[in-house]
């Protein structure tokens, strides 16, 4: 490769970092905006107004109204907030599971490694949705069931990444020295491995988020998820199915579109974080 070509690529990479930062920041802003708006809304969108049933989108109701006269914009924002909370909890639990298993696999010997690798295989060998349905069935549905179900299905990929990361560290000099000083397993894990894993955990969390939200919405849509009284996106969309043939397109279009937007925001934040924390991208 010639020098000029290499230089050109460097300029593009720098540009990429700036773009990544801007995209990530705007993604974060939109997500925070949704949360704040949902908090400010209070009871709007929950109250029924039978004089305003099934109105198509207008200036007063940009997303239209539902069969009970509730404003769809308000319900969508509340639904997104519910999805965000469920997604955040589920993804956080999943990251904890992934970290614990990765630590066990990488440091507790061959036996532990084999067990974890088997768990990864078993979890990946089942369609996520079937396992989600099964867990939700076992727990009798509801928000807790969804959070648990999503948490115990999403850890395998991150576990693999973290395990590989720890394996690289395992024979680092400072770890060996620490061991020679007689530091316990837990001390080494806490002081040498975990701090090193934080960027990967953070990126893993954000990138897991979209999957968690989409699976939550899917499960809820199928009737195994959140309680029908909650204005979750999955609930809104499954309600919209009943009015679809009557041509009430706005009931289905806007909640789904908003969910897509939020998921894209998280992709932008995750990819931005990954670009910004990757030492290989920061050299140039």
């Amino acid at each position: 490769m010639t020098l000029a070509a290499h230089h050109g690529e460097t300029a593009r990479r720098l540009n990429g970092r700036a773009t990544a930062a801007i995209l990530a920041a705007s993604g974060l802003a939109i997500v925070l905006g949704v949360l704040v708006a949902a908090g400010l809304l209070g009871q709007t969108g929950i109250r029924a107004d039978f004089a305003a049933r099934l109105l198509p989108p207008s200036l007063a109701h940009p997303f239209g109204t539902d069969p009970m006269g509730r404003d769809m914009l308000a319900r969508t924002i509340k639904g997104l907030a519910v999805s965000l909370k469920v997604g955040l909890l589920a993804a956080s639990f999943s990251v904890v599971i992934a970290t614990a298993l990765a630590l066990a696999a990488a440091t507790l010997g061959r036996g532990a490694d084999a067990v974890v690798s088997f768990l990864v295989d078993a979890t990946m060998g089942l369609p996520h949705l079937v396992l989600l349905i099964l867990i939700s069935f076992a727990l009798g549905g509801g928000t807790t069931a969804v959070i648990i179900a999503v948490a115990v299905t999403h850890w395998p990929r991150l576990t693999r990444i973290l395990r590989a990361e720890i394996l690289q560290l395992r024979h680092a000099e400072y770890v060996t020295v620490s061991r020679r000083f007689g530091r316990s397993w837990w001390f080494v894990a806490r002081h040498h491995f975990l701090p090193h894993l934080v960027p990967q955990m953070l990126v893993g969390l954000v990138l897991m988020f979209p999957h968690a939200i989409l699976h939550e919405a899917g499960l809820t849509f199928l009737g195994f998820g959140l309680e029908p009284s909650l204005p979750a996106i999955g609930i809104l969309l499954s309600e919209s199915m009943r009015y679809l043939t009557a041509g009430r397109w706005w009931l289905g279009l806007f909640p789904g579109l908003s969910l897509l937007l939020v998921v894209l925001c998280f992709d932008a934040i995750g990819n931005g974080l990954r670009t910004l924390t990757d030492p290989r991208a920061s050299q140039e």
Partner: protein
Amino acid sequence: MQPWPRFIAFRIVRLALVLIAVALVAFALAKMSPVDPINAYLGPDIAKVGPEQRALIAAEWGLDQPVGVQFTKWLGNLLAGDLGWSVTYNAPVAEVIGTRFRTSLVLMGLAWIFSGLFGFALGIAAGAWQGGWADRLIRVYAYVLASTPTFWIAILLLMVFSVSLGWTPVCCAGPVGVLPEDVTLVERIRHLILPLAALSILGIAQIALHTRAKMIEIMRSDYVLYAQAQGASRLDIALRHGARNAALPAITVLFASLGELFGGSVLAEQVFAYPGLGRATIEAGIRGDVPLLLAITLFTTLFVSTGNTIADALYRLVDPRMADPDAVQGAAP
């Protein structure tokens, strides 16, 4: 590197272990459920049945025995080929899964092939002309679609093509009121188009993204540089070198994505009321039809795990270093 016969034997044993583990966990989960199987079976007749009759049903089903005994009996029956009776469909579970899976297989198989073919073609085009307008378009399509809920795509398709335009039917795998065996091929295809489109649109995005990344890697390789030096055109390179080298990785991804394919098919089948295995899964879960739910869990595990195993084997073919993951880690900078 492990020799092939050992790899295959190891994989088969592992697959069997995964199935046993899944059977155990699934059974435990079903037992944990607050849904009472007798109540679920009785449905609205619940008020007509007294405690004695309930006890009779429980004894008939073996529900009065310890959980361990129930599990071994169920597993024994399973191995003997008796999957149990589905209350929801009032038929043997094996028969329900057989007919339902055939219906789903048409949908999933075609979606799988379309995803592979179109995704691959788009990925090659995007990767070979990286940064061009086609690449940008394909990238936006793939990124947006990767974040879209399957069932929402299905709802949109239904809204536009069935409700607004009226080109396609609103539901099911055949016209209402016609026996499944009397449905003509044309009708069948008409009912298949939308679910198929919903599934393929998403599958294409994934394969396209993956192939594009692979293709970019190939375009930077020495042999492509050499071909360029010999005066080969970009199209020539894309077809002769790119497509050949990117094909196996794409097939690998296809095999590894059977789980997502089935998940997508569950959601699509729900939206279009398509009577496949996906809908049977939902019905079994909602009605508390435990034998069917457990059998579907095991069946789909077998399906997806086999796909994963084939993908692993293909990885080994593509990149022998994959046979020893630690070696790859060690080689990384």
